[in-house]
């Protein structure tokens, strides 16, 4: 059985820019993440109003994935980050921190888990595939090839969307890529460390 899999395309989001396979597809300048995400949504003509209800982590993961996914594919999602859902956890904590004004927001609470972003992507793209979200200290360049390879070899998925989606306040970075049986860049630790 073929043990080699390949990065087919990749999307990066950082510093107000979206790059697809290294080519800039959108640039917003020095905006807050929320404004940047709104501008990117309109520029990319995504037309999915639920986007505006998502938390920042889901918006980041959603924008990057939108460049790489097609509907109803057997594509597994394997994402990771360092700060889990801390950005939203802090917002939620603020809403319940004052005993005199205790108004916990249900719409914020539902995003206090990092894997919710995978649900948002799966709903939009009608994916019924495997999905997992991991928390690592740093980009897991050895883990992604091992895990994605396992999913494809065991036929849990035809291909895999791997993603590092990190956001905390205004510090954000996404590196999301699609792995399959064919492509030009072999999916291994060395190549990931070069691309990230």
């Amino acid at each position, binding site marked *: 059985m073929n043990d080699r899999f390949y990065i087919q395309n990749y999307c990066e989001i950082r510093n107000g820019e979206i790059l697809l396979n290294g080519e800039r597809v959108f640039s917003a300048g020095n905006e807050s993440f929320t404004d940047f995400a*709104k501008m990117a949504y309109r520029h990319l003509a995504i037309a999915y*109003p639920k986007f*505006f209800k998502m938390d920042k982590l889901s918006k980041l993961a959603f924008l990057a994935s939108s460049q790489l996914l097609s509907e109803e594919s057997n594509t597994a999602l394997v994402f990771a980050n360092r700060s889990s859902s801390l950005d939203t956890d802090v917002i939620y904590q603020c809403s319940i921190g004052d005993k005199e*004004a205790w*108004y916990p*927001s*249900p*719409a914020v609470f539902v995003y206090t888990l990092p894997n919710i972003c995978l649900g948002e992507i799966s709903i939009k793209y009608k994916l019924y595939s495997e999905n997992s979200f991991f928390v690592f200290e740093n980009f897991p360049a050895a883990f992604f090839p091992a895990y994605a390879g396992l999913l494809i070899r065991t036929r849990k998925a035809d291909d895999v969307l791997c993603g590092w989606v990190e956001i905390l306040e205004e510090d954000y970075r996404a590196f999301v890529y699609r792995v399959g049986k064919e492509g030009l860049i072999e999916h291994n630790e060395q190549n990931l460390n070069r691309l990230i």
Partner: protein
Amino acid sequence: MDQLKLEIKEKIIAALNLEDVTAADINDDDALFGDGLGLDSIDALELIVMLDKDYGIKLSDPKEGRNIFRSVNTMAAYIAEHRTK
């Protein structure tokens, strides 16, 4: 009452992040859930919090929301009768 209805529309838009909707887009009798404005169950919970926070109305039975949140008209009528702030 018209002022209250406009206020409710603006609060709904802000609380539920209805980015592409303006108060003028929502008719007083439009269904808020289902085929109307397309709100979901999490939105319903958010509206319950809004009643408490902005109008001092605590819904003891969430099932009451089904009738109260049918439209802006029904919300305005309930708020006008039960508000404590």
